[in-house]
């Protein structure tokens, strides 16, 4: 890991293309397999693992440092990963001010058994979410400042040092010493797609010790490019003319890849966003991947030319076995928005506009009804795009509006970068739906919150045989602050009407009870719920201490969301008249 860290540290400062190539080639020469192969994968964006969140890193540092010193340091350095890399102190090391002569490990003096890049890559791939913090802390303990910086940049997906995949391949090709038959970066590209890290056969071939590698995986997964959520403040900094807009489909992101193996036999695969091979679940889609290339798109259910909502897609995803009946009732469709490779050529470094142009030509040429092009939304100003986003049906999406959850903004000149680079792609999600519901039951939480009533079941009004009655419509256990939790907990304890084990029923009725403003992302019909609906991603948006329970929303509000287009029940509609 330290050699790799030194490399990217140095390359990050080197402005010249040739200088970078020399530094990388020098690293490849001095570093054994498989370490250098994982480095090549890191440089070319071929690594995929669950990225660690900044919160994890901040948390680890907070456990070990004085908060004032951490705050001052972070202000000074600016970058969180760099601050932590510089401040981190292994537990064995003498604390500040203890005169002990020799610097301890970690103070630019890593022990010889620091993690290798291979260990880090395998560790990240296999660690569960709960194990990750401990794993990262152990690695940080065993590395020096530069090693820690490289590690943190790598695991948070922020390793950007001005090296393109092409440049790394050029450096690799330069290892070839054979003046008679030189190997070029293009030659590397040719065999590249069949190979997987740590690329032993590739290095061996380039260094003149082995045969040209055979294509091992003719249909490889390529780590997807992800978008950042855009905030209102961001728009001031973004130039509308530099961006293209598309609908953000409420489906499942997939990568459809097709190629040929050594015998020329077609190989077709469908990958999930995280690189899981999910081909078996979508035979109807696999069957039509009659090309050689890689498509990035959204899995949708399209019936009679109309995109169904996520609720419908869920019906297909929920079934374990793929039956003929399901294939007919829930036909899979791929709405594509990017072209990563075609006919052996890697297109990821081309600007978005150019990839899009090729994608359009490709889709037309393919002529396959199950694969179509995700349309672009014309706009000149952010206001125009805001209007389209608020009403996709009128802005060209027509009946497909049900399956739209906002817009995507993509810079016209952006290459396809793995991970979540900040700046080129943005997602502008539709606002959540809001309803006012009445708290009906509360349950004790788990873990840290096991002593609090923190899970709330809430209901809406409907007409019962004996007048208005509340019917439960959902359950939420987050969205409130710790302070609010204390107040909610006290409310539950003071207004309990019945107890069932860990559950308390609270007092509710037309003239008593607590109104919760609940935010959620969508609704689907559900036979398992008394109300007949199930919410997606419900959370407490606001606690309406002021609102009489009798004025909470009725079940019809939810029915309307289900039956009509989303524009009608947009939050501004239900929330507008209230004060």
């Amino acid at each position, binding site marked *: 890991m330290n050699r790799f860290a030194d490399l990217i540290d140095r390359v990050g400062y080197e402005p010249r293309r040739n200088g970078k190539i020399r530094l990388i080639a020098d690293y490849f020469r001095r570093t054994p397999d498989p370490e250098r192969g994982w480095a090549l994968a890191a440089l070319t964006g071929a690594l995929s693992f669950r990225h660690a969140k900044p919160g994890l890193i901040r948390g680890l540092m907070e456990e070990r440092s004085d908060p004032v010193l951490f705050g*001052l340091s972070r202000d*000074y350095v600016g970058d969180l990963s760099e601050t932590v890399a510089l401040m981190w102190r292994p537990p064995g090391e003498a604390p500040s001010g203890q005169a002990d002569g020799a610097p301890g490990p970690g103070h630019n003096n890593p022990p010889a058994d620091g993690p290798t890049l291979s260990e880090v890559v395998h560790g990240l791939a296999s660690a569960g979410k709960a194990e990750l913090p401990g794993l990262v802390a152990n690695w940080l303990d065993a590395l020096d400042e530069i090693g820690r910086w490289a590690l943190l940049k790598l695991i948070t997906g922020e390793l950007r040092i001005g090296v393109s995949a092409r440049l790394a391949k050029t450096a690799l090709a330069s290892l070839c010493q054979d003046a008679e038959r030189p190997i070029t970066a293009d030659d590397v590209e040719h065999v590249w797609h069949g190979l997987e890290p740590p690329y032993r056969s590739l290095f061996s071939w380039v260094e003149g010790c082995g045969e040209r590698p055979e294509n091992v995986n003719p249909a490889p997964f390529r780590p997807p490019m992800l978008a950042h959520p855009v905030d209102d403040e961001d728009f001031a900094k973004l130039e509308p003319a530099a961006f293209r807009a598309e609908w953000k489909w409420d489906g499942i992101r997939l990568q459809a890849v097709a190629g040929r193996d050594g015998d020329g036999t077609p190989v077709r695969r469908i990958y999930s966003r995280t690189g899981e091979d999910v081909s078996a679940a979508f035979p109807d889609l696999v069957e039509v991947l009659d090309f050689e290339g890689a498509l990035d798109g959204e899995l949708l259910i399209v019936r009679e030319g109309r995109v169904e909502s996520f609720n419908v897609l869920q019906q297909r995803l929920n079934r374990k076995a793929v039956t003929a009946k399901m294939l007919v009732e829930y036909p899979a469709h791929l709405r594509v928005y990017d072209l990563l490779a075609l006919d052996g050529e890697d297109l990821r470094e081309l600007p978005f506009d150019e990839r899009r142009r090729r994608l359009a030509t490709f889709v037309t040429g393919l002529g396959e009804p199950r694969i179509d092009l995700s349309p672009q939304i014309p706009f000149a100003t952010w206001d125009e795009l805001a209007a389209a986003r608020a009403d996709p049906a009128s802005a060209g999406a027509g009946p497909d509006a049900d399956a739209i959850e906002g817009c995507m903004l993509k810079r016209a000149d952006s290459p396809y970068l793995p991970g979540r680079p900040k700046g080129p792609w943005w997602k502008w999600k539709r606002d959540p739906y809001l309803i006012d519901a009445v708290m009906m039951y509360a349950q004790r939480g788990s873990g840290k919150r096991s002593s609090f009533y923190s899970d709330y079941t809430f209901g809406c009004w409907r007409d019962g045989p004996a007048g208005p009655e509340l019917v439960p419509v959902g359950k939420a256990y987050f969205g409130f602050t710790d302070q609010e939790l204390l107040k909610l907990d006290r409310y539950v304890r003071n207004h309990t009407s019945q107890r069932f084990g860990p559950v308390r029923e609270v007092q509710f009725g037309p003239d008593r009870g607590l109104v919760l403003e609940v935010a959620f992302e969508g609704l689907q019909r559900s036979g398992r719920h008394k109300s007949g609906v199930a919410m997606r991603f419900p959370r407490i948006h606001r606690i309406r201490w002021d609102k009489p329970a009798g004025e909470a929303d009725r079940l019809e509000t939810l029915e309307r969301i289900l039956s009509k287009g989303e524009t009608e029940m947009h939050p501004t509609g239900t929330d507008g008249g209230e004060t």
Partner: protein
Amino acid sequence: MAARASDLLTLTPQGLYCPGGNFHVDPVRPVDRALITHGHSDHARAGHQHVMATAETLRIMRVRYGEDFAGATQEAVLGEVLRVGEVLVTFVPAGHVLGSAQIVIEQGRCRLVVSGDYKRGRDPTCLPFEPVRCDVFITEATFGLPVFRHPDTAQEVAKLLASVRLFPERAHIVGAYALGKAQRVMALLRQAGYAEPIWLHGAMERLTALYKDEGVALGDTPRVAAADRAGLKGAIVLCPPSAIQDLWARKFPDPVTAFASGWMRVRARARQKGVELPLIISDHCDWDDLCRSILETGAEEVWVTHGQEDALVHWCRTQGIRSKPLHLLGYGDEEGDTATEGAAEPAAEPA
């Protein structure tokens, strides 16, 4: 004790002042009587009536400002206790640059140490810092944040030599402050076995000659003539920090821009200077050494002159040590960008 200490040393617009001895330490404006810790131009200025400093510091001032830089001079011998007015004064090695000293001031049972600039890291060109037990320790805090921990200098020099090996057709232009840092880098290169000539920018020449004269072995250090530049493939060239981005530097063959400074620890600082090969070599203490030195003095009270005072004052308080920032002005906390000899303007502090 606190009342006594604040009587022993006070703050005036000229800088730290000792009423009992009627002298200033490192005054930023001309005064009657000045005690100077070391030769950096923000500490050692011309125009005082009477200057007391180590022999080396006096020599450095002479080279920088000319023979008549002060009305009268007095040589302070390291370790020797001198009476100045009502107080006792001792100069003790500070490990910062050639001739640098801490100044110990005593009256009655109160002892106070003005450390000036100091460091604990290896430096073949000057005597090492000696901790002195005292009641009040006065320290700078240029690198007073826990993110600053200077690496071993051998590792940094190895980085430079590795780059010279990898790019033998390119000149390596190393920005380094003309007094102290430049000579330290040369000495470290020699210790690492580098035997080629080390080329010097004209501004480095006189102080380097002074170091050699004082017995510091630096090997062959020719001055770069304008005509030489294009031919210096693979050479190491030392120049003042301000010259690395100059037209002067661009005449070398495909130059690699290096900079030797403690600030190079932070990427944003290195980037901002357009540095391609940051070398973390500092003549100031890093965070660990600041903290360690404070504890070694056993001081009950610490005054922080300049730099990142907030963090160091906070740390002292967490250790149960009384501490306050002095917010002294006129001492550099930036790079030694304008580090030409004898500059009328106080040059910013080297780092």
